[in-house]
């Protein structure tokens, strides 16, 4: 599955707006993840996950920054996320099901903040893009 030219254009153009709220979007995405899917908290026993926690904010920023890296190298996502791919495969070993959950929560956050931009076509492009990102991150799992 690879992104069409149109899909890439949609992602890149929306990222311009999204990146202006990158940190809060990251935090909100994680809040949604931990509330809707409490089992995901099992990967963060070492974190303070309360709303407003500095760790939550820092980690949210990290996650969105990585998505941003993928957007900036949208023609070579595997290359851009190679190190993260190894990290997830050998160190973090987050079960693959969780990438769908995080992706969903990111899309919910973006839809809530940019309703006019989040058309059906944009929704499809983002869902596909996050699917590609997730595939890259789980590529080396076995």
């Amino acid at each position, binding site marked *: 599955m690879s992104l069409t030219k149109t899909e890439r254009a949609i992602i890149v153009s929306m990222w311009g707006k999204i990146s202006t709220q990158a940190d809060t979007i990251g935090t909100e995405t994680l*809040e949604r993840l931990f509330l809707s899917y409490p089992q995901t908290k099992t990967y963060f026993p070492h974190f303070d996950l309360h709303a407003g926690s500095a760790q939550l904010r820092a980690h949210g920023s990290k996650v969105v920054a990585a998505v941003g890296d993928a957007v900036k190298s949208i023609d070579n996502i595997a290359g851009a996320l190679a190190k993260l791919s190894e990290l997830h495969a050998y160190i973090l070993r987050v079960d693959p099901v969780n990438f769908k959950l995080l992706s969903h929560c990111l899309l919910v956050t973006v839809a809530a903040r940019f*309703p006019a931009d989040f058309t*059906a076509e944009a929704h499809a492009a983002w869902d596909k893009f996050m699917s590609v990102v997730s595939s890259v991150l789980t590529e080396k799992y076995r």
Partner: protein
Amino acid sequence: MTFLTPEENGHVTSLWGKVDVEKVGGEALGRLLVVYPWTQRFFESFGDLSSPSAIMGNPKVKAHGKKVLSAFSEGLHHLDNLKGTFAQLSELHCDKLHVDPQNFTLLGNVLVIVLAEHFGNAFSPPVQAAFQKVVTGVANALAHKYH
């Protein structure tokens, strides 16, 4: 054990009261067909599904979306007996419509995204969490009679 906490119940009831079931139903079903094109396999008689705008504007999609969401809406009045409420629809989806239950999960998540789009900040993380429970419950209830 009740399905939703009183707080979650409050979130669901208060938000759902503001939902235009016809509009949101059409949009959710339309987006399902756009975002997950393989789901179009169930709607070959619906006419023009050739592009996102064709799908979103298709009157049969809108009408069917309204039907689906009205049934879902009915379920919200019976959250403590979803399996009973959706028993017949479950049999229908298995025996006559031959719909893979995975599609119920896909549609549920698309509905959550449409609600986020419509309600913005009001669709806060706790409100989303309550709705995720609801859509999962409905999806499970619809799959319950499969054999």
